[in-house]
């Protein structure tokens, strides 16, 4: 296999750099990188600066549902969805059944992943046994088995002492404690953001203060313990302000935002007439929050864009709004949403956006990061930023067809995904 990328846009997230250049891949290895490369013999040439090459795209927040909920997603279907979405590595959340709260389940994920061999999958273990928020899991044992971070995601660690211990204990492995910030006493029975739309639609609300108050507590705990804290899916400006404060004080805190919180607001729940695909946790918030999140992308208070890919079966969504499951299928729409709404609509440089989906999450999670460089395995994605097409949920590789974006015309789609030297995805087809 010989492919020459000519006059394409090369992204170097680790150097905050993007430039037009050539890159040559031979048998899965990047053999040359530079300007005006020319080659003899049979070589496929892919040309044009609308082809964007970005290394090691990582989605650090994915729900794979296996073991336990295989009708929603499996490691195999999730792997396919990941490479079709352009990701070379993903981290899977431990809210499976049984949860990933022990070494055996960590190994199970690795063994399955190796058999499937499409995308790198790094398990995240639970903070507490059974995700019950009471006693610490065997963080060390799971770490040595390959768990890259710890989270009770889906549940907030409501007991501050338990979280304090987790932040202290995990320091010896330098792994992030990933918090799902939600004071559940404030969100009981809630379905959407607490505010204008919840009043209008008569749905129970989940107020921003449920999130921001926990973010504040967690930032203080991270400051107090000097632990490594990552806050998942922030959705309101008040949380951002707290994280900004923490960063300014030198607290070891990072955070992520999802594409859907960047693109949708609570108004969409009303416009869609209670479409259960607008039901997420945290809920879609206000226009003001959305603006603040984009500002957080620009000023780097937000470190990571992660999908919170939450596949569900149609039966879990074709029900009463308050009974529907939370979350959407996100892996296969993340890149086009970010290119369409971040790059085209908001004019944010590609390298800034893509760094939050590659270098930053890889560093936070301590994952191998393979840049665009000479003599390294091809581990990059080609995004055609002038390709415009509609989201078709029926064509998702994921079992989760639960997306609010079905039928949306988006611009900027991944067309090729190389994982550690192998071209595993190309234009709608899984190749390996």
């Amino acid at each position, binding site marked *: 296999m010989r492919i020459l990328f000519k006059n394409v846009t090369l992204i170097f997230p680790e150097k905050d750099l993007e430039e037009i250049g050539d890159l040559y891949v031979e048998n899965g290895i990047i053999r040359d990188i530079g300007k005006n490369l020319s080659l003899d013999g049979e070589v496929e040439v892919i040309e044009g600066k609308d082809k964007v090459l970005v290394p090691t795209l990582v989605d650090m927040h994915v729900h794979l549902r296996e073991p336990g909920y295989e009708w929603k997603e499996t490691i195999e279907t999730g792997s396919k969805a990941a490479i079709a979405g352009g990701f070379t590595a993903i981290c899977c959340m431990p809210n499976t059944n049984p949860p990933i709260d022990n070494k055996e389940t960590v190994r199970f994920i690795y063994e399955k992943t190796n058999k499937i061999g499409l995308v790198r999958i790094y398990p995240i273990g639970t903070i507490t046994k059974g995700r019950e928020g009471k006693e610490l899991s065997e963080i060390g044992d799971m770490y040595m088995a390959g768990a890259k971070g710890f989270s009770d995601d889906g549940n907030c660690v409501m007991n501050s002492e338990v979280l304090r211990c987790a932040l202290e204990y995990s320091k010896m492995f330098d792994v992030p404690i990933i918090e799902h910030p939600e004071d559940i006493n404030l969100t009981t029975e809630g379905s959407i953001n*607490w505010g*204008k739309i919840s009043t*209008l*639609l008569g*749905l129970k609300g989940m107020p921003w203060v449920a999130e921001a108050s926990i973010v504040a507590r967690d930032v203080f705990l991270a400051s107090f313990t000097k632990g490594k804290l990552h806050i998942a899916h922030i959705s309101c400006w008040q949380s951002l302000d707290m994280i900004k404060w923490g960063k300014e004080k030198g607290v070891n805190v990072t955070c992520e935002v999802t594409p859907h919180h960047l693109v949708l607001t609570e108004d969409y729940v009303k416009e869609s007439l209670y479409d259960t695909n607008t039901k997420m946790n945290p809920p879609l918030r206000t226009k003001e929050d959305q603006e603040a999140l984009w500002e957080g992308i620009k000023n780097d208070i937000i470190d990571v864009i992660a999908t919170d890919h939450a596949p569900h079966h149609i039966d879990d969504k074709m*029900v009463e709004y308050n*009974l529907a499951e939370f979350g959407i299928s996100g892996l296969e729409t993340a890149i086009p949403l970010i290119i369409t709404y971040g790059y085209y609509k908001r004019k944010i440089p590609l390298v800034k956006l893509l760094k939050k989906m590659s270098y930053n999450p890889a560093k936070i999670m301590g994952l191998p990061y393979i840049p665009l460089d000479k003599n390294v395995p091809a581990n990059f994605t080609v995004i055609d930023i002038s390709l415009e097409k509609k989201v078709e949920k029926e064509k998702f590789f994921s079992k989760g067809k639960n997306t609010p974006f079905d039928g949306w015309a988006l611009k900027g789609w991944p067309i090729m995904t190389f994982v550690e030297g192998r071209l595993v995805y190309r234009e709608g087809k899984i190749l390996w």
Partner: protein
Amino acid sequence: MWNKKDLIGIKELSKYEIELIIETAVSMKEILKRTIKKVPTLRGRTICTLFYEPSTRTRSSFELAAKYLSADTISIATSTSSVQKGETLLDTVKTIEAMGVDLFIVRHSASGIPYFLAKNIKAGVINAGDGMHEHPTQALLDVFTVFEKKGKIDGLKVSIIGDIFHSRVARSNIYAWNKLGSSVIVCGPPTLIPPYIEDLNVEVTYNLDEAIEDADIIYVLRLQLERQKKGLFPTLREYHMLFGINEERIKKAKKDVLVMHPGPMNRGVEISSEIADSLLSVINEQVTNGVAVRMALLYLMLGGKSDENTV
């Protein structure tokens, strides 16, 4: 003329459509006064009442309205259907629809259910109350009752008292009165006032005297007793002291004020018996008018299309 397949909320109705329903209800009420209360208008049409929440008045009201117009009715209650066997809502409704039902009248504790059904079935849907969202026929019968008593429905001051937060009746009434050109003030403890309610063009007060001072209509909401258990207010005693309508408090109101309540009442909590049974109260008329308004609606939605169907 009428051209809607469904009636889900007052939010989606125009002023003209509300007035059309009221006008039609006037002639329907005339039928109710006859000894033989039956006209053949909806002969051959089938209506299903599907109630996923307990209800006495709304359900009987719809069923009698349908029967007075000669429609066939069936009724499904959750306790006797396959819901108990774990069937989903949509499967239940599609099953009944397949038997040839023209119109569903649905009550459900989940807000938004009528939209969900309307999107997924061909038959019409009337919302008989969904969660905390809307209860359009209640608001329509309220408007009709006021029209009968006051001879007008615009330029009035309507005070809605009580648990606004959890009330679909309050929301539907707010939309209706605003559309008709009357003004609305809502009153209750702050824990029972929903956020951003001012955006629906209503005034908010926590002071009952203020709310009833200039009111033409005092609309008292039912206080669901379970709200106290959730800590939204301390005791029923204190609630009555602050927001209960009784002979003492009503002295501040206009002499010709109307007192309304959607039922069922908690006597001695949100309203005292003395007031509920007084001449100011139109609570029983509301119930009668409920049948007339629902007949009007069924007629407009199912029968009002050709001339031979006129009453």
